[in-house]
């Protein structure tokens, strides 16, 4: 134990004791580096982080005492200090002896402050690593010298590269266990170089270390005289951080908040994503394209002459132009584009699979819009980097897909600008963050397919028919009576000389949607198509009646949002499942119960009843005729 608990290495103590003001002055000018450590369970990741904290004096005596007693009780290093215990935080993890989530740690050296994201190596936690990597300037990829390049090593490297981390350190760990043998190091380096090149990693920094013994962590070790590169800390202290490169790019600032304390002041607050700005700069507000000049950069400590990427500021314009949350202020003669269709890489992070066609919230910068993702073009096997065909994406799956937003967003490719190219997807019902994504480019058709204006408008179509178009959207369980009642409603409307059309679930599946099955993803697409058809028919002035189970609230809400306000009338044919099953007109419940029919709504696939439908029909108290009468009366009072 004695050779581990040497003097803490960063000898700032002397300066602190002698001249605190000088020390503070130094500390004040430190920069910050954020990095992640990735490795599989036994690569010694927690031990390395524990070592960094320990060596930089971030561990106090009381913590050390607790650590010593814990090491003996639950440690995995015999009587020696188990640094991993410093890092494995939550009670649940300590019991299981694994790290289950992203944890953030802090330490200082004389030159820098460091924030370490500690991310677990388990396959099911890809999402945690992507999360930790998203804010990192650098990744330390740990390899156990005894084991060499493993599947996990490839996965971690691929993910770090995917998130755009330019600085990769290959820490070949546990060198003490291979007798500091250079040939072991060289062989691993050769393997890794081959792999790294194949996935597009052009540069990385290999370092032989022992987190446990401390070799090449802070100073070069006598045990590896053949290694002449920097020690790990030396490298971390000098490598360039992202904010430095961001400052070189053209100016962009997403507007978070409009600051308007009184009529005399109007400022636009945000964090500068890239570039620099100063009073007098010509700027353009996107997506409107309006231009003005920066008049002031306002802070509590006085106006600034210049502000750079990474700073949160408030900018005032010389002219009164419209600008609000979600807009992007950019260099006038080099602005980013706006588009509504993209190709993107998507990392799926939720237990529920991605549903192509379902609308999700997409948040990018300060913009939040509704977005739908199409079927993936392919999924990437993160272990082999192979492209696989995929219909959807499951938890921890990474794929490439096209997506479209309901209005244009200001963006740049993720590669060029993390802040304008990185997005999250949010489930509209559960509000969970279900995915992270990176925009590649906008699709040409978004720019080239325009709405063709037509001379006979939807209003004139409706006027010719002397009626107000509408969609009567029937929803309910199979066997609830949707088709029966819808049919009577249409007959009644026809007798009143209304122009109608009935879209029936079963019938549509024989034609338009015959390529779709009954998985959740296909059900979403089924409803999307029916919604689009119904919308075209309302444009033609028709009263559309649809009879589909349409089990998910999200899709019904999606169709509602496609229609003109007031034209979507949700009709819940409310029949208890027991009643529908007792009727079982088509014998489907019997088949589903027998397991012959998969994904049957109400049996092994959920039905989400409307919270607040325009019309609710209780079929246990009304006959089909009475129900139809009621619906017509509500439509045409």
């Amino acid at each position, binding site marked *: 134990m004695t050779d581990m608990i040497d003097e803490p290495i960063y000898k700032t*103590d002397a300066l*602190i*004791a002698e001249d*605190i003001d000088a*020390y*503070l002055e130094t*500390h*004040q000018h*430190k*920069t*910050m580096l954020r990095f992640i450590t990735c490795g599989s369970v036994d690569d010694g990741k927690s031990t390395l982080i524990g070592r960094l904290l320990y060596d930089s004096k*971030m561990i*106090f*005596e*009381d913590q050390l005492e*607790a650590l010593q007693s*814990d090491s003996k009780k639950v440690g995995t290093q015999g009587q020696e200090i188990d640094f991993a215990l410093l890092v494995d*935080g*939550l*009670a*649940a993890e300590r019991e299981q002896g694994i790290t289950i*989530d992203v*944890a*953030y*740690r*802090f330490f200082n050296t004389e030159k820098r*402050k460091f924030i370490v994201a500690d991310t677990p190596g388990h396959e099911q936690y890809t*999402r945690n690593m*992507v*999360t930790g990597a998203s804010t990192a300037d650098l990744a330390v990829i740990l390899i156990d010298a005894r084991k060499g390049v493993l599947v996990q090593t490839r996965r971690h490297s691929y993910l770090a590269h995917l998130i755009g981390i330019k600085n990769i350190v290959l820490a070949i760990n546990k060198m003490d266990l291979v007798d500091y043998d250079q040939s072991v190091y060289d062989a691993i380096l050769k393997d890794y170089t081959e792999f790294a090149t194949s996935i597009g990693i052009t540069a990385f920094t290999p370092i032989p270390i022992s987190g446990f013994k401390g070799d090449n962590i802070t100073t070069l070790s006598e045990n590896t005289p053949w290694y002449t590169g920097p020690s790990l800390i030396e490298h971390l202290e000098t490598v360039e951080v992202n*904010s430095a490169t961001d*400052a070189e790019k053209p100016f962009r600032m997403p507007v*978070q*908040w409009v*600051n*308007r*304390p009184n009529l005399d002041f109007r400022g636009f*607050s*945000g*964090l500068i994503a890239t570039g*620099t700005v100063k009073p007098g700069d010509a700027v353009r507000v996107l997506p409107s394209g309006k231009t003005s000049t920066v008049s002031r950069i306002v*802070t*509590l*400590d006085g106006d600034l002459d*210049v502000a*750079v990427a*990474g*700073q*949160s500021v408030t900018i005032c314009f010389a002219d009164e132009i419209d600008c609000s949350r979600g807009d992007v202020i950019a260099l006038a003669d080099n602005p980013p584009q706006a588009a509504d269709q993209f190709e993107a890489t998507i990392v799926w*992070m939720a237990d529920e699979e991605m549903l192509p066609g379902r609308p999700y*919230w997409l948040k990018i*910068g*300060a913009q939040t819009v509704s977005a739908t993702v199409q079927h993936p073009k392919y999924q990437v096997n993160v272990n082999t980097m192979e492209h696989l065909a995929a219909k959807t994406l499951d938890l921890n799956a990474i794929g490439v897909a096209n997506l479209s937003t309901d209005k244009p967003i200001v963006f740049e490719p993720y590669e060029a600008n993390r*802040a304008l190219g990185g*997005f*999250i997807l*949010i489930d509209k019902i559960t*509000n*969970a*963050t279900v995915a992270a994504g990176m925009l590649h480019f906008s699709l040409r058709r978004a720019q080239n397919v325009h709405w063709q204006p037509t001379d006979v408008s939807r209003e004139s179509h409706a006027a010719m028919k002397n009626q107000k178009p509408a969609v009567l959207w029937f929803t309910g369980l199979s066997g609830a009576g949707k088709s029966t009642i819808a049919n009577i409603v249409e007959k009644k409307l026809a007798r009143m000389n209304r122009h109608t059309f009935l879209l029936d679930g079963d019938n549509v599946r024989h034609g338009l949607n015959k390529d779709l099955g009954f998985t959740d993803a296909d059900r979403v697409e089924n409803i999307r198509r029916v919604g689009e058809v119904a919308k075209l028919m309302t444009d033609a002035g028709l009263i559309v009646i649809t009879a589909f189970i349409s089990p998910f609230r999200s899709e019904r809400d999606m169709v509602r949002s496609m229609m003109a306000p007031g034209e979507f009338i949700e009709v819940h044919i409310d029949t208890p499942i027991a009643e529908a099953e007792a009727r079982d007109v088509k014998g489907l419940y019997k088949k589903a119960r027998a397991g012959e029919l998969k994904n049957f709504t109400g049996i092994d696939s959920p039905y989400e009843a409307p919270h607040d439908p325009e019309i609710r029909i209780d079929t246990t108290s009304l006959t089909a005729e009475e129900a139809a009468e009621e619906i017509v009366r509500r439509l045409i009072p």
Partner: protein
Amino acid sequence: MVDTRTLTHLERLESEAIHIMREVVSEAQKPVMLYSVGKDSAVMLHLARKAFYPSPPPFPLLHVDTTWKFQEMYKLRDRMAQESGMELLVYQNPEAAERGINPFDHGPLHTDMWKTEGLKQALDLYGFDAAFGGARRDEEKSRAKERIFSFRTASHGWDPKNQRPELWNLYNARKNKGESIRVFPISNWTELDIWQYIHLNDVPIVPLYFADKRPTVERDGMLLMVDDGRFPLLPGEEPVMRSIRFRTLGCYPLTGAVESEAKTLPEVIQETLLTTTSERQGRAIDKDAGGAGMEKKKQEGYF
């Protein structure tokens, strides 16, 4: 050429905190800032003033009061509310007041009722859906894994295994019915960062952080300050004047002082850096329930 120097660590931390606060104000319906009058709260308040300048921060300050804070804390609290132009809400759990819950007779129940229950009651009473807190990840192990936007159930519980991933600086502030958010804008600050920032920005803090001669008694290895007449002295116990200061501030009967001569900020920082025990050690609260103390408290709704 414009100056494209790399931002310092404090500039980056400040910018991150300001960005977080502006997101909350833009996306939450009714935000509030929890203000405990300690040094972390002081920094958080200062950052809020920077984030929205020249507007005053567009949310109130909420002090969940236990009635047992140091007198100096109450003084600074009222002064800062006035200076910042923010509304100050003080909440004291009426049930705890009625039952006369105090740190001398009721042990852990004191913290539970005044702080944990008091906080829940106050948030429910005013219907705040997002509350800024000054917790830092370096304070304690379970904090190290907590998100910056940390969701609480309707009963204010925390589920560490079901946290939303937080990517880049994109925060998902959408809540389900009944849920509320605790937001920690200074998550990534360390104790040293806090001191350095106070030093650089002249942030006003409670004078108790600086050494002075104060009346003290020693109990269970802790040095306690006799802050007012409610301190029950044991037979033969006599307050002794010692030069002391505090590393953290809470209820005075629960907060241990350290003997110190550090009268200026640099001296305090110097002592902090040379010290050999961690900051929270002076607090009785972390010692309950062994290593998992804070994690358990948080699941129950402690901030």
